[in-house]
């Protein structure tokens, strides 16, 4: 089985004020991608919340169990992570 490949993405989290470089793996699920993106924002610039997160890519909401490779997320692409209460259904 090939080693997981790093995929640098341009990620934005919810109401944060910038987009950031986050390196995910092609084997990461969207659950893991959300945690990696949130790590740089939640508890730092935005408060923690007891809520689910969703990942959006090219306008699509991605299933939490889908991997980066399955979603077709390519390097340097925009990925948006939001709290579910923003009105997006996971």
């Amino acid at each position, binding site marked *: 089985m090939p080693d997981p490949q790093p995929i640098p993405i341009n990620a934005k989290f919810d109401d944060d*004020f*910038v987009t950031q470089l986050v390196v995910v793996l092609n084997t990461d699920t969207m*659950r893991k991608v959300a945690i990696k993106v949130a790590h740089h924002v939640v508890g*730092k610039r935005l*408060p*923690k919340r007891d809520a*689910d997160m969703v990942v959006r890519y090219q306008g699509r909401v991605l299933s939490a169990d889908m991997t980066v490779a399955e979603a077709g997320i390519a390097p340097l692409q925009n990925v948006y992570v939001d709290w579910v209460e923003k009105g997006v259904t996971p």
Partner: protein
Amino acid sequence: MARMKREEWYNIARDVDWTRSYVDEEAVFPEWLSGSGKEPREAWKSWDEPYKCAYSDYVATQREKEGSVYAVKAALQRSNIFESLDEGWKSTAKVHFGAVSLIEYLAVLAEQRMGRFGLSPAWRNMAVFGALDEIRHTQMDLYLAHEFIAKDPQFDWALKAYHTNEWGIIAARATFDGMMMNPNVVDIAVQLPFTFETGFTNLQFVALAADALDSGDISFANMISSTQTDEARHAQQGGPTLEILMQHDPKRAQWMIDKTFWISARLFSLLTGPGMDYYTPLEHRKQSYKEFMEEWIVAEFLRLIEDYGLEKPWYWKEFLAGLESWHHSLHLGVWFWRPSVWWKPQGGVSKAERAWLQEKYPHWEEQWGPIWDTLIQNINAGNMEGTLPETLPWLCNLCHLPIGTAASPHNPRYPVRSYPLTHNGYTYHFCSRPCRQIWWEDKDTLHQKTVIERLLTGEIQPPDEGGILAWMGLTPEVMGDDAYKYKWAEEYREPAAAAGAEGGLHA
């Protein structure tokens, strides 16, 4: 022997030129440097500077100005003014010295290029004075900053900054290379003297001079006021050049002004906005950054371009909206990524300062309050890691500023997002539509790799926080930290305060 009056000989001396018999005109004034474009060469004979200046006048005036600046400095050198200056103001001065000193030197080269390749002898004459001006400005900046190095090593960045890859310096270098080094001299004249010096140096030199005086830094105020008197003169090279351009190629004139104004506005929201609205002590602030921009830049610029028959830039509404938010976003970014700058950004968000910000910017609390509140909670909980970065913001491929800083949270009109563009199979990212459009049109003279791109292509080793800061030239004694050592956050302290709200992450 009686001397002739200046007006009797000035035009003849100024217009000395000759027809070359042994070398082609194109070899002496190659189009790629002289940039005449659609303008016939004959058109340049009408170039006429509005401000007449002979060399003897120039030297006498400059000598007086120099004497004044250095006399004030010498008088104050023996005082203990430096020790009494506010740390926030010192940061404003450090930003200026680092970002401006060697740009003055870059302007020497731009003026010399106009002095060599300008197609009018009158223009070349004025450009020589311009080059001498810029040498003087470089010397003054470096000399004044040098005095403070022994007291604070961050002042060493007056000379060092442009020899590093610090991210703000990359943004400034890209802006000024695109304005002064990469274009032909006609485009330089429209971009540098007309758009930048006529518009934006007012911001840096007039506004800052007032803030410096109020903050007690008399020597600095004196220096930049002296600089501005030169700028006001040599900026006038732009007008006659633009007049000729408007007769033969107004579309080119409009584009050069539009793009330069936008890029300059983006950069100054980093270099000047935070200094005016956050670093200058509250009791010394006369105008907000937005108020100053509206009075000195917006009104003046519109009057100026209308005089020449030009239109407002296509992005005007977006620029005006940006006066409400860009510099707040960049201030927050500079403070959060503070180890990556050569000054000490002060938070500037005590309760009294926030009240002032909210009064000046009615959406401030809604857009920026929640983020600062979270940071303040972390400070007061002793969780300093929660106030520091572990990755980089994505940077705009044109202005090199973080993506999101041409927008703001809770802003439906200009939301925080990237404006991507895929070209030859590669995705570039931009902070705004204007940055994307300008890059697309003029990428040949404007493109430089961003820090993110250098990191991802392996230029920065090791590719971690320490490696990035070392690559930027930031050593521990120079890295930025909060100007007041976070004391301003204490008034928010509540018993048993804890960072963030309760709860965990679920996906």
